[in-house]
């Protein structure tokens, strides 16, 4: 897989670390959360089959966090904008 970093251009996936799906934010009011809602927040990754937005960390490059769109069925990539994640 060749990932396009908005700062460094096309780089081999080996320079990056996968950082998980871009998904729901941390619950606003953790004390009020039920066990089931906690479970969903912590363990239920979307595990999308198809296109998903993901965080990747360009650790062996510019060291920034970027957002990438990847198709998990065939690992095809679409470049995305950097959402101002600074490493």
């Amino acid at each position, binding site marked *: 897989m060749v990932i396009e970093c908005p700062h460094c251009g096309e780089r081999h996936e080996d320079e990056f670390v996968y950082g998980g799906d871009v998904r729901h934010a941390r619950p606003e009011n953790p004390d009020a959360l039920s066990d089931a809602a906690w479970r969903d927040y912590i363990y*239920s990754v979307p595990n999308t089959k198809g296109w998903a937005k993901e965080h990747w960390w360009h650790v062996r490059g510019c060291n920034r966090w970027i957002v990438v769109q990847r198709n*998990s069925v065939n690992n095809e990539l679409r470049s995305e904008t950097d959402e101002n994640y600074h490493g």
Partner: protein
Amino acid sequence: MKYSALNLAWQGVRNHRGWRRAWRHATPKKAYDAIIIGGGGHGLGAAYYLAKKHGITNVAVLEKGWLGGGNTARNTMTIRDNFIYPDNARFHHAAVKSWHTLSSELNFNMMISKRGMTTVLMSDRDLSDAQRMINTTALFGAEHRIIDIEELQQRLPMAVSPARLPIVGGVYHPDVVMARHDAVAWGYARAASNLGVDIIENCEVTDIIRDAKGVTGVETSLGNILTRKLGMAVAGHGKHVAAMAGVELPIETVPLQAMVSTPVKPFLDNIVVLRGFNTYFMQSDKGELVMGSGTDPYPSYSQRGAPQIPEATIAAILQVFPSLERMQFMRQWAGILDLTYDNSPIISKTEVDGFYIDVAGSGGFKTTPLAAMMHADLIANDRPDPLIEAYSLERFSTGRLILERASYGNR
């Protein structure tokens, strides 16, 4: 038709024209007492035990492709017993034992090959981890022992001299066996079919139908089929199939790769684990080197795998076994695993009545007979056997995880 030496000789005389299909070709009936989704070892085994142990023979196994074409055909066949958390240690020790009588029970040769596993340790930390693993697993009956460098060199004659790598010793695990993966699917299919189970290939489940009381059937590529009891054993696709029943599974789908070389003369009987490199390999009965390592570094459904994994696997093996440098690589592949957060299986009821799941966790070939037996028992009796209580889906809300993440060996 029974498989035996006598029958083999008799068929030989008849030019092998008399063998019959191993399992009946079946087309779906309107309704079944139980349906299993997924025709891998786990699903076929569950159907067999439903018929054999619980007398429920009006059962169908629905497989979207061909039997055993999923992870059952893609794994590296290692059956080991080195789990350190009590629930896992108990379960896996029983799982390893459940292979011993399988060939004779199913009248199908599982080609069990008792290899033993030798783990190469390369730091003091490896050594103390190993000692801890040995002590805890011993409580549940597993046998391992620390071996010194001299014995390590005897067991792995082609390994590099410890002068070149910081090798401190090893662990020997004598009970590790390999079994022929295809035989598991075919053996269960044949035995289940003989007991009346319908095995239906090229039949993809596309939806799960429910009413207020629970499951009532499935929608498939071959039409709707009714049932009140539905078991799911679809490694790699668990999240999506469970979602059809409205059940949310805490699962991530990650590829795991393996690769083989061209065959060479036998030189290695043990399964070798290179602890520091997270890599393992063995020589198959055919003479090929079978190699593998950890899962891919990101989730994916592509059954190809990331290229840096084979590279790192081979680099690791060559560091310890430099004389294998001229071996030729033949094939590489990936299977997709349903990984839970704690890397332990889920064999559980769900909040939907009549919907049961057996998702194998990370290394579920070794558990095939026992998990299938427990899954069948769960479906038949609607309550978990004490052996699998800890594998319930509820553990993700109660927080009672079995954190075998660092499961001691490989696969």
